């Protein structure tokens, strides 16, 4: 199975905002990790660096023994593709293709695996792929909406379609950026159940950014807390203490002030 290892990763945006400030941790196969941290602490940035959507400024990220940062910097397509095939992402803002159908959006999950992308369009798709996509939709409870256009769905429905897309991709690592932010409590739990079911079943690795502490403690094997782009907490979920948690969201530097190094300000 594929380990994920992150070493001293920094990310500075072109405008000088420093979102990650030397993040390091290693996740064991099959570990369900929850990423906590206040708004702007760098969770999204970290997840995007892992699958190479964002190029980290320094450090190493190993997925399947490939250094993502290096691959990204050298524009090594093949390496990057291998990384991405193995990492599925659920975005905070869903990122569906709005003017296509729901089933089509799910079918796109397996776009990385096919040689011929034409095969992934609902008209030309092989029957078995369509069946798989329907099964994925069914698993998130939206089989009835397969033919709807994605932009007529409610927020929560969209989020589930995005999750179905990742199921379709069938990756080894799932990166989930607040996957249940817009789901109702019951659906949220169902989705978490679903994610964790797959993790257990296939011994996958999950990194999931969450704001719901209760859910985080309930589902996560391990909780990693970010603050101003630093790892300030990293414990098994059952050994967490309330103090640590509340410290994570402390006001002073972390949330309202962006994660900018002080020396840049005049």
């Amino acid at each position: 199975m594929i380990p994920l290892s992150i070493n001293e990763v920094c990310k500075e945006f072109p405008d000088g905002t420093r979102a990650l400030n030397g993040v390091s941790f290693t996740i064991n196969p099959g570990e369900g990790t929850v990423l906590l941290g206040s708004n702007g602490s760098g969770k999204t940035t970290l997840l995007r660096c892992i699958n190479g959507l964002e190029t980290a400024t320094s450090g190493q990220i190993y997925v399947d023994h490939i250094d993502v940062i290096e691959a990204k910097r050298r524009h090594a397509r093949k390496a990057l593709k291998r990384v991405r095939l193995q990492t599925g992402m659920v975005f905070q803002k869903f990122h569906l293709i709005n003017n296509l159908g729901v089933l089509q959006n799910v079918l796109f999950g397996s776009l990385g695996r096919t040689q011929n992308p034409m095969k992934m369009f609902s008209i030309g798709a092989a029957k078995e792929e369509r069946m798989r996509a329907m099964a994925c939709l069914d698993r998130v409870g939206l089989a009835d909406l397969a033919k709807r256009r994605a932009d007529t769905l409610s927020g929560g429905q969209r989020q589930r379609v995005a999750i179905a897309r990742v199921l379709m991709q069938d990756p080894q690592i799932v990166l989930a950026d607040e996957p249940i932010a817009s789901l109702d409590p019951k659906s949220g739990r169902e989705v978490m159940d679903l994610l964790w079911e797959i993790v257990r079943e296939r011994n996958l690795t999950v990194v999931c950014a969450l704001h719901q502490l209760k859910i985080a403690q309930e589902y996560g094997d391990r909780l990693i807390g970010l603050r101003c782009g630093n790892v300030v907490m990293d414990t098994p979920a059952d050994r967490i203490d309330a103090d640590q948690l509340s410290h994570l969201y402390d006001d002073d530097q972390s949330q309202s002030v962006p994660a900018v190094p002080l020396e840049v300000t005049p």
Partner: protein
Amino acid sequence: MGEQLRRRGGGASGWGGGGGLIILGLFLHGVYIAQLTPERLLSGMGRLGGFLSQAIPPDLTRASNFFWAILVTFEMALVGTVIGVLLSLPVALLASDNTSPNRLVRNITRNTVAAVRTIPDLVWALIFVVAIGLGPAAGILTIAVDNLGFCGRFFSERIEELEPGPVEALSSTGASQLGIILGAIFPCAFPSFVATSLYAVEKSIRSAVVLGLVGAGGIGVELSTSMRLFRYDQALTIIVMIWLVVTASEQVSTQIRRRVI
């Protein structure tokens, strides 16, 4: 950081300031040589009556000839535009910041498309006449190249303006560039591509004078002949007929766009 941002902004506006000043100077000089005083505009209004009276009422005697000429022109414009649009799709992908394999390819493509646009109709007509002889084919190819320059640029701009979200979503599945293009870029840009292409057909009908250059006939020749012979009433008929065709195609275009937006 505020400071930094400001500094960056300042530098940029300093650079842009120089260019901006030159452009402003040229603009002001342009305004100066135009001598476009309100009195002139006003007194000009009066003189238009005589001109219009020559055009109204429109002369319908040759309307049926015109109808066939417009139909033929429409056909050729359609074929030329389809060719041009199909060629524009890959070209636009190569010319866009966010889809081009690299900067070099992007710059070369972009400048080539600009060059294609710069070369006038007449020159393209010459080239195609030399290559394949007089007739509709040369006209169609000229229209196609004209649209390649136009759609190539507009498609590319649209692609660069797309929200990054859907593209990132597909990238993150490990999709190849082709997969991303077919799955995210084309669907998201589709409404705009359709609108641009429909406009291109319309534009080609109007600019189909080029078909006359190469002996393929069409409404462009009729119109320019009417104008040269001061048959403004006949010219008005042609203009109205083209306008009807354009309006009809706008209707179809609106229908199509409403379905794809």
